[in-house]
Each structure stands twice: as C-alpha cells, then as structure tokens.
C-alpha cells in the first residue's frame, strides 16, 4: 500500500523488505521493473525524459492500487514511478505485489502495469544520438493490454 512518484532511483530489495518485514503470511512476491532501453524502433536513445502531472499521478496510481487490491487478495503492494531525465539502463518504474499465492501476485502486477501504462499521467520524450528529441507515441497494444482486464 505505497505509491511514490519521485525523481530518485529505487532499491528493489529495500522495497521488498519493507513489505515483508515481520510477516509470515506472504507466500509470493512478484516484482516488475521497467528500465530505460538504449534502442527504440531501431534508433539509438541517449536519454529519456519523463514528464508527469505529479499530483494526479499519485492520485491515479493510488486508485489503481485500490482497484488491484479489490480484485486480488494482496497482502501488500508498492508502485514507484520516476520522472525526470534518465539514461539507458536506468530504472523507470517498479511494481511489487505480495500475496499468499502466486497467481494473484502475478495477475495483480501485470494488471497494474497494463493500467499504469494507459492511465498514469506520464509522458516520455526520447533524445536520439543526434540530439533530436521526440515525444513517444502511445501504443495501441497498450490499450489492448489494459482492455483485457
């Protein structure tokens, strides 16, 4: 039950530890980490800038988390989304779902990522090797992925 929109990096091990500390009822933890890639559609990317509508992002991610927790029996969840400028290899987003059973943890994490992609107010601008900057277009496949839930 934690949502954070931040410029700094995150520490997966620390985030898992804070979900599990002192508990023995969690049987399954699924994490998803989204990472900035150095190539996109065949172009070399030197930097990625994420713009956000921060107050809404926090509100929307919290609503998504509540939604996930109403659909699956989760014992804990964490969503961290970074904004600002990142280099290839840098972490962008972290989702963690903890449950007694693996299927719930897998499905909830996958659901959160699908919904986050289409509903959380973040916009990516890629800077190519030549210095050209372009806003990344939304993908139809992301809408379809969210529609399956």
């Amino acid at each position, binding site marked *: 039950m934690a949502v954070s929109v931040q410029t700094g990096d995150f520490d997966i091990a620390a985030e898992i530890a804070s979900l599990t500390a002192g508990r023995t009822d969690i049987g399954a933890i699924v994490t998803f980490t*989204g990472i900035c890639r150095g190539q996109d559609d065949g172009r070399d990317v030197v930097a990625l800038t*994420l*713009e*956000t*509508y921060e*107050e*809404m*992002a926090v*509100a*929307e991610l919290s609503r998504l988390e509540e939604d996930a927790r109403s659909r699956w029996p989760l014992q804990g969840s964490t969503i961290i*989304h970074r904004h600002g400028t990142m280099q290839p290899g840098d972490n*962008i*987003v972290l989702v963690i779902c903890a449950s007694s059973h693996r299927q719930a943890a897998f499905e909830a994490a996958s659901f959160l*990522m699908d919904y*986050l*992609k*289409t*509903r*959380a*107010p*973040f*916009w*990516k*601008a890629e800077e190519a090797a030549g210095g050209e900057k372009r*806003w*990344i*277009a*939304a993908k139809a496949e*992301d809408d379809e992925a969210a529609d399956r839930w």
Partner: protein
Amino acid sequence: MSVTIKYFAWLRERVGKAEEDMILPAGVNTLTELIAHLRRQGEEYDHAFATDGVIRAALDKRHVPLDAAIGGAREIAFFPPMTGG
C-alpha cells in the same frame, strides 16, 4: 469562476505554457466547449488542439471524457495519451 488549466507534454509545448488561470466564459460548460473556446484564443492553441480524438483530459486530477461537464472543477488538465511505465 476561475479555473486553472494545465497542459502537458507536446500540448504544453505547443500552447507555450504549462498552466494558466482563466474565468470560464458563459456558454462554456463542457471540456469540448472549452477546447473550442481555447482554439479561438490564438494560433498556438488552435495548433495544439488540432489533433482531434487524441487529446485527453482530467478534472481535479481524475480522467474524464471530453464531453464531461466542467461543473465546479478547480483544475482542468489537457494532455496527449499517456506513455509512462
């Protein structure tokens, strides 16, 4: 009634500002009507909102369709489809 209008990503770049305060004129009740009003405020607005069917909006930090009534919302946001994650 004064509202704050926020713009993000390429919409912000095209409009040339991140946000502005505005007294909604009479006759502007929905977001679609607000967009029509904004497009008459200058070429930059007209260009920013020219891409029909792409612009998304939020009222007080919640997604809404463009035909939503603005009602008593204090903060209106316009932005392109989201590409986070």
